[in-house]
């Protein structure tokens, strides 16, 4: 992140979703293929990445703008959004592209 936040390195580092081997098989995608992550608040396309230590059912997206698109702003009176726990669906997204940070910001500020 110290290399700047608007370049490809940053996108490569945060626009990913780490899942386990069996999830790849279930989705029918290969490592690196785009996947769409969907929560009640919206959806975002990120690159899939294999986490050898992971187990089915838990996926990880690094803290960053891509995760925030699908995050609830309700802090339950604590000031803290629920960054670490949310229910989500993962869908294959073959052929879809990952937005740049500028495009992402646009969808965040102009979308519903």
């Amino acid at each position: 992140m110290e290399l700047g936040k608007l370049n490809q390195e940053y996108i490569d580092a945060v626009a990913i979703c780490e899942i386990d081997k069996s999830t790849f098989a279930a989705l029918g995608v290969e490592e690196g293929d785009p996947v769409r992550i969907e929560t009640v608040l919206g959806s975002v396309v990120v690159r899939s990445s294999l986490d050898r230590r992971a187990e089915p059912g838990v996926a990880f997206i690094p803290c960053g703008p891509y995760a925030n698109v699908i995050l609830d702003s309700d802090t339950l009176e604590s000031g803290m959004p629920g960054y670490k726990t949310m229910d989500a669906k993962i869908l294959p997204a073959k052929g879809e592209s990952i937005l740049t940070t500028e495009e992402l910001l646009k969808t965040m500020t102009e979308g519903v």
Partner: protein
Amino acid sequence: MNQETQVFDHIICPFCGCLCDDIRLEVQGNKITKNELGCAISKAKFLSHHEDRISPTIRRNGTHVEVSLYEAIGRAVEILASAKRPLVYGLSSTENDAHREAYKIAETTGGVVDNTSSVCHGPTILGVQESGEAAGSLAEVKHRADTVIYWGSNPQFAHPRHISRYVRVQGEYIKDPKADRKIWVFDIRKTITANMADEFVKIEPGKDLEFIGALRALVRGHPLDFEEVAGVSARQLAEIVEALKATKYGILFFGLGLTQSTGRHRNIDAAIRLVQDLNSFGKWNMMPMRGHFNVAGANKTSTWQTGYPFAVDYARGYPRYQPGEYTSVDVLARGEADAMLNIAADPAAHFPRQAVKHMSTIPVINIDPKRNMTSLIAEVNIPAALAGIECDGAAVRMDGLPLYLKKVIDPPDGVLPDRDVLRMIHDKLKKEVG
């Protein structure tokens, strides 16, 4: 220009809450050419400090137009002077003196002032306010701890030298760090830290609170009539409790996996009580793994000056404190703030969508050394010197120890430290709003 290589020793790394104070830098002319001892993040921070810098800009007809520093400050003052409910936010990646000026601006404009801890360790503070603080220093950990727990924290990734400087290292009473000290990781997934730890306990997502409750019951000698809690078997629970009770000096390091998950400050509250219970058996402390290098300092300076660690509202002329109400995400998501002054943070990259959406509808003044997502939507961008590299100042380590950051090179031409920019804004504001 003098091109001789200068060597600086014992430089503090202004990146994460470890504030490693042993960095050795080589400087040629006005360029840092080498960083010894720093981790990969530290090397990137020091060696690429001159890249991606912002210049003073003002948005005109939808595009950023470069202006002079004074024009940018003038526009910032205009925005703040006419705002009814300005939000002052950030502060965790700058030094303490800059914080002071930011609080003054909030007071003068009757705004809300909050720092990034409301989205990282805010719940820690709420937990501490409820249950007290069992604090110790990192030096104590190094010299005494025989049990080290990382809970919902992945230091090998976010605080790369934490383990090598304080845990897997010889201390006064820990002669063999591998044999005399055990590292436990409690997390919902097997992180790289979990991989190198002696013991890894996998907790079901969102079940930390139940799990801590079960541990506390067992520590206090109450039997459990469950087969498993949070995915951990009763047998394993009993083994964990035995190990915790046999500890002479234990430390519970906890990260955002505990503060940002279901339960939030209740998790911390419970963890503090667990540590209190364990103090009947051995000596136990706990410590939040603070992320940004001076977010701990922001909580301290805010408390010194306003009386409260974060989420402070000056609308009535005196400070009031209400997390959940005056915390930035809430103030923005409710659509309340009509201007925002952001200092040394990137809320556009870190806030949930609804909050960012509101940010894009109000004038944002962004003071930062580098380009980031907030600089893209800002109405006014004002560049600042990098604290700890291009200007000096004080910062607070995760264990509360204040350290003096040194200046090693000059900032780019015309770029001032945050504290000077903020002071200029405040002085002008004072004249306008009295």
